[in-house]
């Protein structure tokens, strides 16, 4: 399956799960900021992706929950520390950190959850299965 095919299927899933218009969904759309996803929507997305792609997505693999749990080593004064950043990169290997690294605050973590993150995750998952 090509990256474009994966994107099309993911976009259709977003339309269904988040009740958004198809033209709102681009590769760089953030799930929370741009598409209005709430916490239960993340479960809904996982459920629909599993069904759509015929795969199993283990908990925390695509959308890690409570990433830092208030650990002071990872976050200081609202900023993600270098140690926190490497932890984040380990937990979200498919995320694009290029923008985030310029201003790594706790509020902007949610911007790492993009449509592209899902597409890249699925690419890896499908490649492994093949």
């Amino acid at each position, binding site marked *: 399956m090509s990256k474009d095919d994966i994107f099309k299927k993911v976009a259709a899933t977003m339309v269904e799960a988040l009740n958004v218009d198809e033209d709102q969904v681009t590769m760089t759309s953030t799930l929370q900021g741009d598409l209005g996803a709430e916490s*239960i929507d993340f479960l809904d997305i996982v459920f629909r992706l599993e069904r759509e792609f015929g795969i199993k997505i283990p908990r925390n693999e695509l959308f890690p929950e409570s990433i830092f749990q208030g650990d002071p080593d990872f976050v200081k004064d609202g900023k993600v520390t270098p140690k926190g950043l490497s932890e984040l990169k380990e937990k979200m290997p498919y995320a694009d950190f290029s923008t985030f690294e310029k201003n790594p605050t706790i509020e902007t973590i949610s911007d790492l959850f993009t449509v592209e993150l899902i597409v890249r995750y699925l690419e890896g998952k499908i490649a492994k299965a093949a």
Partner: protein
Amino acid sequence: MSQLKDQIALVTGGSRGIGRAIVLALAQAGAKVAFVYRGSKEASDKLVEEVTAAGGEAVAFQADVSQLDAASKVIEQVLAKWNRLDILVNNAGVIKDGLFLRMEESDWKTVIDTNLGGTFSFCRAAAQQMTLKQRYGRIINISSVAATHVNAGQCNYSASKGAVNSFTRALAVELGSRNVTVNAIAPGFIETDMSEAVRSKAGDFIAKKLIPTRRLGKPEDIASAVVFLASAGASYITGQVITIDGGLSLGAVSG
């Protein structure tokens, strides 16, 4: 008559008392009804016959709702049979009354595990089907006025029902966006086996002095509200505890 036509309902504690009336009322409203009973095989067979004779469809499952795996087993079977679950009524409940100073740990545990634990595990087992697969569901938890209007000897029961009320509200918040409503009904003094002991001692006094409508409640008084909460007309009601007690909880003394 057919406001719930072809909807699939599951009622716990369905063979006797309020649960039995709920099964009959849902079936009469057109739903296909699965119900859970713990011990009353004979009563449950009779109920299935009664529903069938009236042209409805019912099926009974034996299970003890206080066992955590009971819910998933029952709901798996309901889905295997009907492929949907529209209405879940958590009605199974027990009392183990006794003064707190003499209350055994087992009296506490049985009541909490059945009334609260059973409600939790059936909601959990139904939630994925309702929220993610169907995006439709009606959950109705049977609570009690004893959650808020307490009596001596019912620490365990009141605690379990108070928790059911809070659980109902909190779950309603989580499932609302998926078109799943969660409500509770708090019955007052209803003529069932459960209230037999108190009724035989003080039923008349309670009806005459403490209940503005001057009568004890009937299981059907509760069942009709369940049918309403499950119907299309109730789609904007969620997270509520609806008291049905003939006015008992108003706290007025007549005469």
